[in-house]
């Protein structure tokens, strides 16, 4: 893994995308390196989820391209091949039937197995490894609906890990998680990146992105408005414009809505993971 560290794994060139006549993303370009955690930040409706869907090969671009390690994601990679390289953790998911944690995680092997769905030894090993990595292995035989929100999220991330994909995309991974579990998850994602994965988090939670990411991409109405370290992006004028709040840099990060102080994350940034 160390050898590939730092290589651009995913790159977008002039990426535009949308739904029918409604275009959401406008000529977005960037490259993401392996071993890093990148946050996609932006207000509601700025195109975070749309961008994630493009990166996950779910939504073809209307213009421009998405490349995985130099190959065009939509033209040159079949869905199964793409799913072995890129895993998505959706914001919400509701299985149609009650599944156990193990069943959910084993579904992560879908792109690796034959059409009859039989798992080999190495598939079970990968699933078991993913469950241990997410510390959910003790709940393996429990039903997903019996778990707490945090455990459920860990099970879904474990499924993405079982895919053994180098790129991990997460849509609002800390939604519905309390601060403790959110910090745990962010710490885990960091560790995964350190071992060579490319992690992308779409979120609108400033403090989590500030804590969890090496780099932030700011989307404002479908355009890439800022790109850099969390400190730089969060303190940028573009960020203030996008969200309509003023952000002051201090010891921690303090967020002001003009006229009213809402939240200081100083305490939060002192919480140890």
């Amino acid at each position, binding site marked *: 893994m160390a050898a590939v560290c730092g290589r651009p794994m995913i790159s977008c060139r002039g990426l535009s995308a949308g739904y029918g006549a409604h275009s959401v993303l406008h000529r977005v370009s960037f490259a993401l390196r392996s071993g890093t955690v990148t946050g996609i930040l932006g207000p509601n409706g700025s195109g975070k989820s749309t961008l994630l869907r493009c990166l996950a090969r*779910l939504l073809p671009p209307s213009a421009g391209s998405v490349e995985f390690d130099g190959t065009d994601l939509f033209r040159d990679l079949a869905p199964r091949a793409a799913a072995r390289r890129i895993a998505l953790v959706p914001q919400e*998911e509701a*299985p*149609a039937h009650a599944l156990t944690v*193990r069943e959910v995680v084993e579904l992560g092997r*879908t792109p690796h197995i034959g059409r009859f*769905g039989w798992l080999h030894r190495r598939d079970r090993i990968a699933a078991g490894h993913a469950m241990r990595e997410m510390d959910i292995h003790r709940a393996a035989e429990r039903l997903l609906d019996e778990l707490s929100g945090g455990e459920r999220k860990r099970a879904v991330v474990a499924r993405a890990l079982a895919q053994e994909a180098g790129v991990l995309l997460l849509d609002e991974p800390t939604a519905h998680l309390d601060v403790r579990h959110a910090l745990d998850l962010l710490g885990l994602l960091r560790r995964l990146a350190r071992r060579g994965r490319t992690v992308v988090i779409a979120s609108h939670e400033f403090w989590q992105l500030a804590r969890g990411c090496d780099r932030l991409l700011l989307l404002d109405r479908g355009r890439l408005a800022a790109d850099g370290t969390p400190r730089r992006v969060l303190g940028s004028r573009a960020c203030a414009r996008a969200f309509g709040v003023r952000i002051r840099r201090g010891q921690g990060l303090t967020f002001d809505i003009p006229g009213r102080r809402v939240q200081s994350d100083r305490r939060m940034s002192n919480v140890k993971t």
Partner: protein
Amino acid sequence: MSGRGPGLAGLAVAAVLAAVLAVSVGPAGIPAAEVVRWAGGGGASLPEAHRLILTEVRLPRALTGACVGALLGVSGAILQGLLRNPLAEPYLLGVSSGAALAVTAAVLLGLPAFVLGIYAMPLVAFAGALVALAAVYFLARARGRLQVTTLILAGVVVSAFLSAVAMLFAFLSGPRYLEILAWLMGRLEPLTASAIEWTAAITVLGMALAWAQARDLNALILGEEVAESLGVGVEAAKRRLFILSSLLTGAAVAAAGPIGFVGLIAPHICRLITGPDHRVLVPASALCGAAIVLFADAVARVVVAPSELPAGVVTSLLGGPFFLVLLMRHARMTGRVR
């Protein structure tokens, strides 16, 4: 997880018991013990009349019933998985009615059952089933997202309409009116040996094809978008599954008319026993469907003896309340969760 092996074995036993019951009851009662002994090779003990009844009448009929049940059970499992709808079922979705209308029309137009040595009726029924399923799907989708109840509503409407057209055809046909009407209620007709062979062959092929969809059906449990992100080509998989379930339903309807609710009940019972994994659910639903149709046919021959009911009447009597329970449970769940 743990109930899979024993669950499948239990369903196999149930199917065998239902088969023994189906061949032993009827106007000439043949004791089950005699049937079992005969099946075990002790044929000498069986009176000649009973042996003839078994080999010429009841076994072919039981084989047909088992095939029809397996086809409907698996078709239901596929539709429920594909549409992520616990109430989906070939009969309720109008798929069976489409197949039945196509067969009725073909028979009345004088299409022979065999064309160039190929059993044509399943193909005709398949075409009817596919058209009906496509109609229901697009009707229900016309309003955006595919809602559980909208889909069933569209199915019931299409089903009622197509059934009415089939009955109109039956009525206009004159002397064969009653015969066709009984068939439209889902009745195990005496088929020719060749037709039974074809039905059995389609059943075996259909089961294999359905089993080969297990991976994609399992991924679809998580939703279409997640399945796509797991590498399932969802649109292609949906097309395959639509065609496959129409093929299975068509073969069943060509053999025995539209028998209702088997495709609803069988997968539900199996999910309780073996869990939602389609690698097990597909063969389990086949066994369970076969058991249900064989049992229903046995009941249909006993309750109004010496006459007999269409088996579809019995399955509907069982299936109606079953559907209501599922519907109420679904309504309760959606009321609370969403």
